[in-house]
């Protein structure tokens, strides 16, 4: 019974849907404030029902399958992408008592599930039989290879510090001291996260001014809805991962529960949106150069720093 609740309600399907609707609305409203606009304002209080209507509209629209593509591949990829993007929620410790799958390899599972997502999106682009989608697919693959290296290295630094891959015990062991030791790792994780989630300045794979919407170009209706759902579920997994690994997860200053985790996730989202509102896109070459010349070496240095800190600040090998 618990299991069914977990899958259908929290932290499963309904929760992801609610998160998608709410975060979408928040992004639009927050971006509007930065843009000196109003944002959605007609439906519901402060336009909060607008995204719900938008998504329900997408669900009821026809999904057009272009001529000449494999219809099964074309339609199954969004479904697969959405499903895989939702899986990491099972591994995150949402509250002190709620982790659906508590495993000593949880961290590994998290990074792998986050890591294969771009590959699925690449396949959507590949299966669209469209020049722009194809270019978008190639770009997403290039970006994935160069950004995930540092993403993994940064995500593994807490495991190295605490000597465990169990997310629950990482949260439990975190202290103010460990927060500062992991802070460089957090920054690296955040930069790699921008690349992984295709956010500015790394929104290269779906750069609409260059290659229309990249892998999204041919998708419409329900399939587009599923891809958007996958994107926002991916946001959740990555934000929750960052909050859990580096910011002490559900632990708060005064009490420990879900809202502490939620606030941390929203703070990361706000930071991401602010960068989005003030930074233009860079080119593929600049991204590759940045990733391999700076980000990856820094991630390796970060590992060295964690080891040194563990020995000299926290006092010895566990």
């Amino acid at each position, binding site marked *: 019974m618990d299991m069914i609740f977990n899958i259908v309600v929290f932290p499963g399907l309904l929760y992801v849907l609610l998160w998608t609707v709410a975060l979408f609305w928040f992004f639009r409203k927050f971006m509007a404030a930065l843009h000196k606009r109003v944002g959605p304002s007609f439906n519901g209080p402060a336009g909060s029902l607008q995204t719900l209507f938008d998504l329900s509209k997408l669900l009821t629209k026809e999904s057009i399958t272009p001529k000449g593509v494999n219809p099964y591949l074309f339609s199954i990829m969004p479904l697969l992408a959405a499903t895989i993007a939702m899986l990491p929620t099972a591994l995150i410790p949402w509250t002190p008592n709620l982790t659906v799958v508590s495993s000593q390899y949880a961290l590994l599972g998290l990074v792998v599930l986050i890591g294969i997502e771009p590959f699925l999106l690449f396949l959507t682009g590949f299966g669209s039989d469209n020049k722009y989608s194809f270019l978008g697919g190639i770009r997403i693959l290039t970006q994935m290879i160069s950004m995930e290296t540092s993403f993994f290295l940064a995500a593994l630094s807490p495991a190295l510090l605490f000597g465990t891959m169990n997310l629950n015990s990482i949260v439990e062991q975190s202290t103010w001291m460990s927060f500062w030791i992991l802070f460089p790792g957090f920054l690296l994780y955040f930069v790699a996260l921008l690349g992984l989630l295709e956010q*500015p300045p790394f929104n290269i794979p779906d750069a609409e001014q260059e290659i229309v919407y990249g892998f999204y170009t041919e998708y419409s209706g329900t399939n587009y809805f599923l891809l958007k759902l996958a994107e926002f579920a991916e946001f959740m997994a990555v934000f929750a991962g960052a909050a859990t690994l580096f910011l002490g997860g559900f632990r708060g200053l005064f009490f420990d529960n879900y809202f502490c985790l939620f606030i941390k996730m929203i703070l990361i989202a706000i930071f991401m949106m602010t960068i989005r509102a003030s*930074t233009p896109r860079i*080119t593929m070459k600049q991204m590759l150069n940045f990733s391999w010349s700076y980000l990856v070496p820094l991630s390796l240095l970060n590992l060295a720093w964690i080891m040194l800190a563990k020995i000299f600040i926290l006092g010895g090998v566990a």
Partner: protein
Amino acid sequence: MEGDEILMQNIKNILSSYETEYIEDYKTVWIKTKLLKSGDLLEVAKALKENGLRTISTVSATDFLEENKIEMNYFFEDLLTKRNCWLKCDIPREIELCVIDSITPLFVGASWHEREVFSMFGVKFTNHPDLRPIIVSQDFYGKTPFRKDFDWDAHEADIVTNMNTIVDSFANEELENDKKLDPHGSEMILNWGPTHPASGPIRLKVHCDGEEVLGIDPDIGFVWRALEHLVTKKDFIGAIVAVERLCFMDNINSMVGYCQAVEEIAGVEITEFAKYMRVVLGEVARLSSHMMGMAGVYNALGLHTVMMWNMDMREFFLDFLESYSGARIATAAIEPGGVRYSLEPKMLEELQKALDKFDATKEDIRSIFVKNPTMKLRGAKIGIISADEVLDYALCGVVARASGVKTDIRIDEPYGAYANITMDYITQESGSAQDRMIQIFAEMEQSVDIIKQAKKHIEAKVASAEFDLTKDHMVKVPKKLPKGEAISRVEWARGEVLMHLVTAEKATSPYRLKLKAPSFNHTMMLNHLLEGKTLSDIPLIFGSLYICQGDLDR
């Protein structure tokens, strides 16, 4: 001044060694001449080029049905020493004999202008490297839409055939592309537009190998409204609504250019108040265009914040235009004889609000967006246009000044009240995409400064009762104009707009109006700038050239 006269005399000396009908001074910076033999054209052009007139502003044809001739007009310019030469020559009108030497081998900037004359008038240019039709759609190929005897009604009546022609030619083009490209290779031809998120109504045929651009062939004309033909169907006042649609973002200055030409033929001098109002309105329109133009550079990089912030300011300036003319965008506020409406003091209050808003916001925009480090990373080394290329391709306005060329019609050939305004050339050094964005912002500040000067002057003159706001704005221009022709140049938001107006005897509508607009030359540059670059550079360079399809296609 003496040095200038010697330089002008040089041009006259060159021209006098050929057979000409006349050589005369025209306005302050022009020499007007007519060659008797069209065969001399190439030699004259070569001599002029050697004398420093390296830039060809435009090539324009006028069809004289009764005299059975086509008159070619060449406008040679020297952007550096401000000497210009207006060269005319006649060629026969019969389609087989309607041939003249192409000057494109000497002046690359003439290429598209000659193609345009070829498409519209059927004039063939010998030795033109790439004489394909431009602007017109495929159903006009081989026809001569701008000739006086072209039957538009007959053409429109056959609409199904016309559409099939267009559809078939696109299908053929696709087939030819398939033949040309290796099916197993990575080369492809991308249609960047006309329904692309960043293109606007233009189609760039991008031949690329993966991300690398091998060549670009712009296909323009998707918003061709045949404005030059349209004005000949309207009276002199009705024509302003066609002229202002050159591009609605800066509609005032294009109307100013047209009205000046009409006033010159009518021999009317407008009041000082109207001159100052043209400056104020023109600079407000320039600002509203520049705000979109600066945003365009950033939009090309996926950052829309600048556009929103600029729109926020722009609304205040549009409020002023609305209070003055009743319309925010297509104002139709300039008329031959002055400005259309009288001014009320509360309109100046609206203007003051807009100026205050700009002053309050500009430092934020400067610190976040003009000095943006990521923009520097993207734009500082890309899309570089050298000063030589500016002269060769006849670039103008923001693009020319960003490359360090000191050209600005407001100073070179002052019109309206600009002679009384204190202003200086604003230039950047390297001519990169980033420099053009910075240049647009710098010119916004300059415009605000000009508006403040003009506003102060108007207010002072109103206080001393020298301007009568209720009736000074217009002087009467006769409905019927004598036979004549005039050219008028204005510094439009995007650069030089040259209007060549021809009227017939007792005319109630223009006989021919040539609109030379800057985006045409700027788009001509695209292949040159983008060859060998990557797909990511297309929107940035395209956006930074400040192209508007309205004045590209006309």
